[in-house]
Every structure is written in structure tokens, then in C-alpha cells.
């Protein structure tokens, strides 16, 4: 009478039916305890009471049902221990006690159930050790012990269960060697300790291995490293350790790997790129270091890549831009440097991009605007420079934008107002100036905004998200109507209407006047220009300073702007304390390194004198350990220094990159150190 709406307790009189062989009362609403008199049903072979609301403990008398073959009591509210008498049910083949509130430990007598094929005790409150007698269940093919409070380690005897092909419980025993055809091993969310056994996957049959959320320590066993049958591996949140480069091999069928929250160190092996079926790789929250291997770009099925919270360094490889299915890229909290490769703009499926908390520099590439499916963009806590490009406004599905804590300058582009789905916006802690575009009134979905710690001025948008003080504090001169903590925007801003007529008249008059003055002035200037071919450093108009040693200043300035070109992020090498370095190929041939100094506030000319004398000193120096300064340019818009270009990059990079460091043999290193030493003696660095 299964699957009915029977309610009320099981009457003890049912137990008078002594010839009953099958009692099926599952999936009803039966309440109360299992009566003690159940023991009278000596002929019972099948007892299904699962999926009810039975309470109380399993009566000892259950052990009297010696003909019982199939016992199902799952999905009830049974409490108390599993009775020791269970061991009497010698012909029991199926025992399901899962999804109850059984407590105490698993009785040793369980080992007497030699006919048992299926044993499920999962989702209870069972404690203490798994009895070693479990090793006697030689006919067991399926064992579920997960979601209990079992502790200690698994008894070695589990290795005797040679028929076992599905094992789902807690910790791993040492003697796994004999379970050679184990396909699936599920050990999650228990308190198990110890190392992963060296016998796992000896038979190369293991496909699914999950040990998430335990206290496993030690390295990945060799047998697991060579386990080529692996399809899905989850070892998150343990204390596993080992050198990442050595711990794993190549797995042709591997689909999903979760290793986050462990103590792996060393470098990320390029072998992951050979896992052509890999869709998910998460090694976040470990101690891995070195560069992200470019070979990862060969794992073409990759959809989710999470390497955040490690010590990765070097550049983001542009090869990642070739991954056609990548929709989630998380590299936050590392030491990555250099620019965002332009190729990342080709990731048409990308929905989440998080590169926060790194040392990424150079301007944010415009190509980011091509990521039309992007919904979350976080580039905060880096050293991005230059302006926020208009192109970011093309990403119409963006709901979260965080560019805070960078060195962004320039005005906020009006096109950002087109982000109608934007819910959170953080531009705080930058050097943004000018007024907030009127288009920001269109940000109808905005719930949380932060533009604090910038140099912004003018009216705040009429949106609730900008109302709190924390959202706009520490700017230059913001104003707002209907906002507390903020002065109302002055009436003079309304005057432009009447003002503009006057302005037009004044403009016309002054234009005519200027035109006249220009004609006269240019005549005199023309005379002067014919006398001078080159402009010297002294006595020139401070705002118009073009001096390159031995070259035609204005032309070289133009060449440099063309060679970089116009300081795009493609040619950006890196950003330091004083400026950003670009590689410039001049049309006349030579390749130079151009350091564009950070724009001083308000075009401060006062420092120019100090700048000039320093330049003089530097151009006189010819020392073999100092990069030769070829010249400098200083104009109202840009100031830059021009050095000879060194192919190898910075000394620091060379020494920290193992490959490059190997090329520096001992003599070369000695000479380099000597050189730095000499340098410091002379100039007291």
C-alpha cells in the first residue's frame, strides 16, 4: 500500500499477520514509532517503510526478521542507534537507512551482513569510526556513508571490498589498491583527516573523485597524477600541498577540476593546456606562483577559469584571448603586471572579467568595449592610467562596473550613461576631473554608486544612488540640489541662457580684433623665424619647449607621437612611480623607449626648471650601467624622456623569470651586480 495518503501510526495488530512476506507502506504520512511487535513477522522478506514520518528508534526486534532481504527505512525521522541485532539479518541484500536522524556509531555487527549488496547510511548523525568489520562485506557493490559526522580515518579493511564500484562516504583508507575498478569516489563534507591514499586509481578506472571539504593533507599521490581516466576531480577546501608543476599530469578526458582552498605551490604547469576536454579549472586560493602559461590557450573547451588569490606574476598571456567558449575569467588578487592584452577583447562569450588587485598598468584597452556579453567588469586596485574610454559605454548588458583605486585621469565619458542595466558603479580613488556627464541621469538601474576621492566638480546626477555622503566625498567641487552634505549648485549655472547672447557678441568682436592682431603679429614672427633654425633651451617661451639633442625638435616630437602611436596601450611596456614607459619605433629607424611622465596637476610649470637641470645632468652621463638618455620633450600636453631601448626588459623581470634567469650565467650575474654597485656608489641611490 505504498504511495497513498495513509496517516496515523502503524497499528501493532498488523504484526499478527504472521504469514506476511511483503509489507510495503512507503510514501505515506505514517507517524509514530515502528512497533516492537514487528518482530513477529518472521516470514517477511521485504519491508518498505521509507518516505513517511515515522519517529522513535529502530526496535531491537528488527533482528528477528531473519528472512528479510530488503529493508528500506529511509526518509523518516528515526532517531537513536542502529540496533546491534541488525547483524542477525544474514540474508539481507539491501539496507537503506539514509535520510534519518540516526545517531551513535555504526555497530560492528554490520560486518555480519555478508549478503549485503547495497548499504546506504548517508544523511544521518552517525559518529565515530567506521567499523573495521565493514571489510567483510565482500558482496558490497554500493556504499553510501556521506553527510554524517564520521571521523577518524577509514579502516584499511575497506580495501577488501573488491566488488565495490560505487563508494560514497568520508575519508580515504590506505589500502585502496585492491579496489581497482572503482569508478566513482565521493568523499565530501566530512571531518576526515590524513593523506590521500597512494592506491587511488591504480586500475586507471577512476572517473569521478570528490573529496571537497575535509582536512586532507599531504601531496597528490602518484597514482592520481597518472590517473588518465579522470573526468571530474574536486579537492576543494582541504590542506593538500605539493608543487603544482609536479602534482598533475595530462588527462585527455578531464572535464572539471576544482582545487581551490588548498596549499599548492610552485608554477602552473603548461600540461593543463593539453587537457582538451577541460571546461572548468579553478585553482584559486592557493600559493601558486610564476607566470600563467600561454599554453592554457590550447585548452579550447575552457569555459570557466579561476586562478584568483595566488601569487601569479608576469603578464596575462594574450593566448587566453583565443579561448572561444570562455565566459568567466577570474585572475584577481595576484601580482600580474603589464597591460591587459588587446586580444582579450575577442572573447565574445565573456560574461565576468575580474582582474582586481594586481599590478596591471597602462591604459585600459579600448577593445574591452567589444565584450558585448559582459555583465561584470572589475579592474579595481591596479595601476591603470589615462582616461576611461567611451567604448565601455558600448557594453550594454553591464550590471556591475568597478574601476576604483587606479590612476585613471581625464573626464568621465558621457557614453557611460548608456549603461541602462548598470546596478553598481565604482569609480572612486582615481584622478578623474571635470564634471559628471548629464547622461548619468539615464542610469535608471543604478542602486549603488561611488565616485568619491576624485577631482570631480559640478552637479551630482539626480539619482538616489549618489545621495549618501560616502558616494561623493573628497572631490574638488561637487554641488547638488536636494542632497544633504552638499551645497546646492549655484544660480550662476542657470545664467548661461541669458549670458550666451552677450557671449556671442563678445566673441564676434574679439575674433575680429584677434584676426587683425594676428595678421600684424605673424608678419613680425615670420621675420624672426627666418633668423633662427633651431630653438635653444635658454630664453625660450616656457610653454613651447622642444629640445632634442642634435635633432629637429618638432619633427622628432611628431615621430614619437606616431611611433607609439599616440601612447596607445599596445606599445605600453609598464608603469612606474614617475610615468609610463612605451616602446616607440621611429620612422627614421631607431627603436627607443619613451617614458611619458604622469601629467602634473594644473600643468605646473614651476617644476620645469628643476626638470631642465636634471635633464642636462643626465644627458652628460655616459656610464655603461646606466641606460643612455637620448633626449627629452616637454610641452604643455606631454613631457617625456627618451632612452635607448633595452630588449630584455627590467633586471627584476629577468631575475624573477626562471627561463630568462637561466640565460644569465654566473659571470653575467656577477657583472650585473658589480655594475649596480658602482652605480649606487656614484649616485647614492
Amino acid at each position, binding site marked *: 500500500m505504498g504511495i497513498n495518503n495513509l496517516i496515523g501510526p502503524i497499528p501493532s495488530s498488523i504484526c499478527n499477520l504472521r504469514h506476511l512476506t511483503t509489507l510495503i507502506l512507503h510514501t505515506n504520512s505514517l507517524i509514530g514509532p515502528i512497533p516492537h511487535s514487528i518482530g513477529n513477522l518472521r516470514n517477511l522478506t521485504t519491508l518498505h517503510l521509507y518516505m513517511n514520518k515515522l519517529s522513535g528508534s529502530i526496535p531491537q526486534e528488527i533482528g528477528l526478521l531473519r528472512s528479510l532481504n530488503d529493508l528500506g527505512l529511509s526518509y523518516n525521522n528515526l532517531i537513536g542507534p542502529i540496533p546491534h541485532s541488525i547483524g542477525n539479518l544474514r540474508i539481507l541484500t539491501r539496507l537503506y537507512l539514509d535520510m534519518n536522524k540516526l545517531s551513535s556509531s555504526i555497530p560492528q555487527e554490520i560486518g555480519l551482513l555478508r549478503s549485503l549488496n547495497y548499504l546506504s547510511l548517508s544523511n544521518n548523525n552517525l559518529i565515530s569510526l567506521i567499523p573495521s568489520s565493514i571489510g567483510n562485506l565482500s558482496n558490497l557493490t554500493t556504499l553510501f556513508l556521506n553527510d554524517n559526522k564520521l571521523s577518524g580515518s577509514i579502516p584499511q579493511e575497506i580495501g577488501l571490498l573488491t566488488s565495490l564500484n560505487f563508494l560514497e562516504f568520508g575519508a580515504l583508507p590506505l589500502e585502496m589498491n585492491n579496489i581497482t575498478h572503482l569508478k566513482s569516489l565521493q568523499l565530501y563534507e566530512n571531518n576526515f583527516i590524513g593523506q590521500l591514499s597512494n592506491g587511488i586509481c591504480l586500475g586507471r578506472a577512476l572517473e569521478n573523485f570528490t573529496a571537497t571539504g575535509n582536512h586532507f593533507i599531504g601531496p597528490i599521490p602518484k597514482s592520481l597524477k597518472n590517473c588518465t581516466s579522470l573526468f571530474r576531480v574536486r579537492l576543494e577546501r582541504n590542506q593538500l600541498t605539493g608543487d603544482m608543476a609536479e602534482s598533475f599530469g595530462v588527462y585527455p578526458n578531464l572535464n572539471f577540476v576544482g582545487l581551490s582552498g588548498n596549499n599548492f605551490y610552485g608554477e602552473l604547469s603548461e600540461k593543463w593546456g593539453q587537457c582538451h576536454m577541460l571546461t*572548468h579549472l579553478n585553482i584559486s586560493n592557493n600559493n601558486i606562483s610564476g607566470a600563467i602559461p600561454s599554453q592554457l590557450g590550447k585548452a579550447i573547451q575552457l569555459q570557466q577559469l579561476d586562478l584568483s588569490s595566488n601569487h601569479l606574476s608576469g603578464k596575462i598571456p594574450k593566448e587566453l584571448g583565443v579561448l572561444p567558449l570562455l565566459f568567466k575569467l577570474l585572475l584577481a588578487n595576484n601580482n600580474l603586471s603589464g597591460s591587459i592584452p588587446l586580444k582579450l577583447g575577442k572573447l565574445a562569450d565573456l560574461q565576468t572579467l575580474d582582474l582586481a588587485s594586481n599590478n596591471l598598468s597602462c591604459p585600459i584597452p579600448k577593445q574591452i568595449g567589444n565584450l558585448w556579453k559582459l555583465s561584470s567588469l572589475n579592474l579595481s586596485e591596479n595601476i591603470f592610467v589615462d582616461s576611461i574610454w567611451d567604448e565601455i559605454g558600448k557594453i550594454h*548588458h553591464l550590471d556591475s562596473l568597478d574601476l576604483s583605486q587606479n590612476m585613471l585621469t581625464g573626464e568621465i565619458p558621457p557614453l557611460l550613461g548608456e549603461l541602462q542595466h548598470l546596478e553598481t558603479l565604482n569609480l572612486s580613488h582615481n584622478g578623474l576631473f571635470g564634471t559628471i556627464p548629464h547622461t548619468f541621469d539615464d542610469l535608471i538601474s543604478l542602486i549603488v554608486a561611488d565616485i568619491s576621492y576624485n577631482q570631480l566638480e559640478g552637479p551630482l546626477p539626480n539619482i538616489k544612488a549618489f545621495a549618501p555622503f560616502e558616494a561623493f566625498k573628497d572631490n574638488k567641487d561637487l554641488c547638488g540640489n536636494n542632497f544633504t552634505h552638499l551645497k546646492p549648485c549655484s544660480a550662476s549655472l542657470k545664467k548661461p541662457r541669458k549670458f550666451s547672447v552677450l557671449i556671442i557678441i563678445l566673441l564676434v568682436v574679439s575674433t575680429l580684433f584677434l584676426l587683425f592682431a594676428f595678421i600684424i603679429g605673424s608678419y613680425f614672427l615670420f621675420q624672426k623665424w627666418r633668423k633662427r633654425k633651431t630653438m635653444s633651451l635658454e630664453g625660450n617661451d616656457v610653454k613651447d619647449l622642444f629640445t632634442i639633442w642634435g635633432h629637429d625638435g618638432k619633427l622628432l616630437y611628431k615621430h614619437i607621437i606616431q611611433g607609439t602611436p599616440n601612447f596607445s596601450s599596445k606599445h605600453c611596456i609598464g608603469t612606474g612611480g614617475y610615468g609610463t614607459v612605451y616602446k616607440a619605433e621611429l620612422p627614421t629607424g631607431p627603436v627607443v623607449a619613451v617614458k611619458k611622465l604622469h601629467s602634473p596637476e594644473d600643468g605646473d610649470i614651476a617644476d620645469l626648471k628643476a626638470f631642465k637641470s636634471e635633464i642636462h645632468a643626465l644627458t652628460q652621463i655616459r656610464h655603461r650601467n646606466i641606460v643612455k638618455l637620448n633626449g627629452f620633450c616637454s610641452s604643455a600636453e606631454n613631457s617625456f624622456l627618451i632612452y635607448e631601448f633595452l630588449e630584455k626588459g627590467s633586471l627584476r623581470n629577468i631575475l624573477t623569470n626562471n627561463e630568462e634567469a637561466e640565460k644569465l650565467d654566473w659571470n653575467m650575474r656577477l657583472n650585473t651586480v658589480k655594475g649596480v654597485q658602482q652605480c649606487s656608489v656614484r649616485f647614492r641611490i
Partner: protein
Amino acid sequence: MNSSISFLCFLLPILFSVTSTLCTNSEGNALHALRSRLSDPTNVLQSWDPTLVNPCTWFHVTCDSNNHVIRLDLGNSNISGSLGPELGQLQHLQYLELYRNYFEGKIPEELGNLKYLISMDLYDNKFEGKIPKSIAKLKSLRFLRLNDNKLTGSIPRELTTLSNLKVLDVSNNNLCGTIPVDGPFASFPMESFENNRFSGPELQGLVPYDFGC
């Protein structure tokens, strides 16, 4: 209906020695049932393995720390098919993002059971039928975007009780009747309603009269 699924749950492992934990998670079941109605030519749902103990490692599904589904991000995925009542079982869902696909059929009224829902983005699909009144039960709802579909009928007046509603867009549908003006509707711009067959804003001061359409 729930019990018969559970019955199957229990029977299968016994009869067929299938050791899958196919049914220990009702949210996974609900999503699996959804998937069976859908056509997915670009294999966006390929990772949706029903034998896993919960759907929290499925791609485009986000869970909270208690393994409850809080986000479903299937926008721009080339998916077609219809939604069923099973979506209402995702009791902790906060973001339902199904925009820019080829979904058809009705918007199930069971979506009104998603009491923590913050965002319902069904825009740019082929949904038809009426806007279910049950959406008015979603007291946390902030974003309701149903634009660019084939919805008919009127806007249920009950939606004026959604005090947290910040953005509503029903433009480019086949809706008729009057546009409510109470509660949050007072701040929605006219663009949110354009390209429909509305007879204009609701007349204030008179007994509310459903013109029917």
C-alpha cells in the same frame, strides 16, 4: 506529484543499481525539468548533470553558501522552448536572467512563488499570453523587464503594490488597457510603455474600470 517523483527516486537505485543521487535536490530536479523542455543548439546547458548531488557546479547557475540556487544567467544563449511551473521551486532565486533568447509560450504564474526575486529579465524573447498577476507577490522585485515580447492583455493593477520596483519595461509588446499610475508607476518614464496598444494612463479619481481588452 512530489511523492511519485520521490518514489521513482527510491525505486531506481534498487531496481537498476543506478547509484546516482538523482533526486536528493529538488532545485536540481527543477532545473533538469526545465532543460528537458528547451532546445539548446550551442550546448550552453551541457554541464547540467542531474546525477550530481546539487546543481551548484552547473555552469550559469550560482548558489549561496547553503547550496540554494540564487542566480540563473542564461541571457544571450540562443535557447528556445518554453518555461514550466518547475521554476517556481527555486525558492531562493534572486536573479532570473533569460533575456535575448527564443523563449516562447506563457510566463508561468508559478514565478510568483520566487519571493526573494530581485530581477526578472525576460526581455527580447517570444513570450506570449498575459503578464501573470502573481508577479505582484514578489515584494523584493526591483527590476522587471518584459519588453520586446508578444505579451497580450493588460498590466495587472496588482503590480502597483511592488514598492521596491525601480525599473519596469513592457515596451514593444501587444499590451492593451490602461497604464497604472499609482505607487512605483508614478516614476516610470513613458518609454517603458511605448509600442503597445494602451488606451492611455489610468484615469484618476474615477472608479477603476477595467476596459478589458
